């Protein structure tokens, strides 16, 4: 467990690094927040008004002071106020987050449900037609950008079903599960496509590695039937790389799938950040990027816990 403890210790350090990086780098972005916020009307402001507005948002101070303030605010759970929305940053983020979380979960579910069985099947039928077929599909899946998949899905939907995704309010799962699923299923398939391809490839190669291990031979020498050898003896040993990959991909999806949100007109975290950068909404960019990095680290921690659950050598410490 000391490994996990060490992970937890580095956690705040990495977050600090992320916040430093974001805080100072967005201040390198040319143009200022007030001009970006008010557009051409900014030209009508008197210098005094401009000064007052800057003071209101706290961006009149030296950067280091701003950072200190922001950091102390952070410790109280205060991420500042968004210039664009005029509301606390955390509220804005949490409003967008359920969609992103649900989309990420749904994509991962699709990827694992398709990828693991496909990978296992391919590994056990090595060099047979089904293996070759699965490998070709997985290779294609891994080589297709998600906007190509997304646009293809939209093309099919619009030409054959006359359906066009429109920008609208996101329906929560708790309000109307069917409407919710209707909004998310195609984006999730789009994201799940390449994800499933990666899971398939890694499951296959991990299974092939494990199937040549000595303990598999032991299981066979005991007279264990093929199904039991694969699911009971081999798969638990092959899951670690699958968990690693899924964790990383899921972590990134929690950062918002900018392109897919764009194509399917979904108000998720990715678009929020994209817009915030365009708007020079410093507080919002800082807040959302930190939030995304935080999620990523949490997912990494969960992955480590999953390793421990899967492998007693990690759980109990190898000798």
């Amino acid at each position, binding site marked *: 467990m000391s490994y996990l403890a060490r992970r937890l210790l580095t956690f705040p350090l990495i977050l600090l690094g992320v916040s430093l990086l974001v805080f100072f780098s967005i201040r390198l972005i040319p143009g200022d927040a007030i001009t970006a916020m008010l557009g051409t009307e900014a030209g009508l402001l008197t210098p005094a008004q401009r000064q007052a507005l800057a003071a209101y948002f706290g961006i009149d101070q030296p950067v280091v002071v701003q950072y200190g303030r922001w950091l102390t605010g952070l410790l109280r759970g205060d991420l500042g106020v968004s210039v664009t929305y005029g509301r606390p940053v955390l509220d804005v983020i949490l409003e967008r987050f359920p969609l992103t979380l649900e989309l990420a979960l749904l994509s991962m579910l699709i990827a694992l449900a398709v990828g693991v069985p496909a990978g296992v099947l391919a590994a056990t039928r090595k060099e047979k037609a089904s293996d070759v077929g699965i490998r070709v599909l997985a290779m294609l899946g891994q080589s297709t950008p998600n906007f190509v998949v997304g646009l293809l899905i939209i093309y099919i939907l619009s030409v054959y079903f006359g359906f066009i995704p429109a920008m609208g309010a996101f329906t929560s799962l708790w309000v109307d599960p069917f409407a919710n699923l209707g909004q998310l299923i195609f984006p999730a398939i789009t994201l799940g496509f390449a994800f499933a391809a990666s899971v398939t490839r890694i499951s296959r190669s991990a299974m092939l590695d494990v199937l040549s291990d000595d303990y598999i031979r032991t299981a066979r*020498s005991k007279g264990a039937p093929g199904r039991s050898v694969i699911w009971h003896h081999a798969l638990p040993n092959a899951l670690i790389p699958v968990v690693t990959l899924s964790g990383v991909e899921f972590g990134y999806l929690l950062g918002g799938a900018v392109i897919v949100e764009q194509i399917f007109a979904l108000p998720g975290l990715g678009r929020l950040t994209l817009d915030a950068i365009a708007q020079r909404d410093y507080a919002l960019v800082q807040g959302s990027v930190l939030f995304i990095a935080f999620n990523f680290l949490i997912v990494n921690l969960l992955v480590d816990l999953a390793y421990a659950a*899967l*492998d007693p050598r990690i759980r109990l410490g190898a000798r």
Partner: protein
Amino acid sequence: MSRLLSVRDLRVGFGRRPEAAPVVKGVSFDLEAGETLAIVGESGSGKSVTALSVNRLVDFGGGRIVAGDMAFTRADGSVLDLRQARGRDLNRIRGREISMIFQEPMTSLNPVHTIGAQIEEAFRLSRGLRGAAAHKAALEALERVRIPDAETRLRYYPHQLSGGMRQRVMIAMALAGNPRLLIADEPTTALDVTVQAQIMALLAELKAQLGMAMIFITHDIGLVAGVADKVLVMQDGVAVEQGALDQVLDAPQHAYTQHLLRAVPHFSGGRAVRDDAPQAGARHAIVAVRDLSVRFPFGRSVFGRSAGAIHAVEGVGFDIVRGETLAIVGESGSGKSTTARAMLGLVDVHRGRIETSDAESRRPVQMVFQDPFASLNPRMTVDSILAEPAIAAGRKQDAELRERMLFLLGKVGLAEDALLRYPHQFSGGQRQRLCIARALMLNPDVVVLDEAVSALDVSVQAKVLDLLVDLQEEFGLAYLFISHDMAVVERIAHRVAVMYAGEIVEIGSARNVLGQPQHSYTKRLIAAVPGIELRRQHYALDSSAVPSLVRERGYEPPEARWRDLGNDHRVRLEDE
């Protein structure tokens, strides 16, 4: 006796065209119920493939039986050709009628399941036991293989057990179905010699109890002497000789069998030691090691303090003398390799001195490592490999250097064209010769040989040993020879130090230490060595374990007390 298995003209191949280059080329043998057949051969002889063909596990390794038949008499008296058997029948035979144990106990158990679950599975598959009945059976099985505290151990995972313990678990599992045939594929090769003796004793005892037949695969003809009824000698996929044990060992017919019996070192209790030791007056130490301790701290906290240390080497001292071989023998974890590495500065020395005097070379100590495949950079050609020590010493790659390389290549018995080749183009024995040549590039006074012949096949091993002796005589080299193999040590050592749990427990001339061991551990070690001459001797069960080397922070061991037996023989006094 009744016929259990009759194998006729077995041919097995691998790959897309298995018949093109078979690995097993027409092997035939018979096995009666309750009988033990030993299949002996070197690596690549096809002995393991033959064994794996019997329970058809060879199919899963990409092999195919291309010809022959294997008539197996089942428990109900029906005879089945195992070559034609279908998958379902084979699953019913495996574990119930034919069981198997393997060479690598470290990797043969599933790391994610407890050993209890794995043994219970064997009982479920072979006898349909479930739940409490399976648990009880597993418990009894562990007790049968003499695992202490079995109830607790059932909840252990494989990585929490030592190699010897794991092999016992494998045996417990293999015997779950009361098989009529046990195939043992080099089951003790990966184990220490005293643990090997324990496992062999256990197998002999269980075999007598259960009356099962056994096929025992090994490269060590001395090992099977105690257990086998019949011996089959394999070379290049062919059974070159087979017959009753005494007949094959005492009157070998085939040249290869004779070679195996003659070329391979057999331990003879100090009677075969070298008698070319330097004269007493001419002895001067090139390297003197005094009170050497190596500790590996662990559990280091954020503040840099460690919770304790593994005392890998503790208070070790010896002299290395020109023209003489000092062997350090011991089992894994005894600290013998750490001592060697400390000599070369590869590990940090906690305390003690390594003094070099009277040396002629600038780097007087050089080393040859155990694994000839890992100690040569696979991406470098032999001439760059041999040039490296010289370049490190600041020399240019000139004609003189090339001369030296060719000279040494000749000395170790390799051709000149070796210079332009890569390590993978050589066999294990040739690679080890390259390593020796490399170690000699700088004209060292002492060569440390860390298990330098252990990874080699027995007949290759004998040739490399001869080479080492020749080089020693020609260049007046001193060797520090680290080994676990008593038979090899007997051949090359002038003096022997026995290490146990990080300390030297006995040191002296090879004849004295190997012939009249005084320390209880030395005695145990020597008694455990298998040998043809010891074949009538019965292994006694002994389950003593090596004490832990893990010590609390600040621990200092008590001072060692020695007894001098005179005539170059010292033994450490033991606690009463």
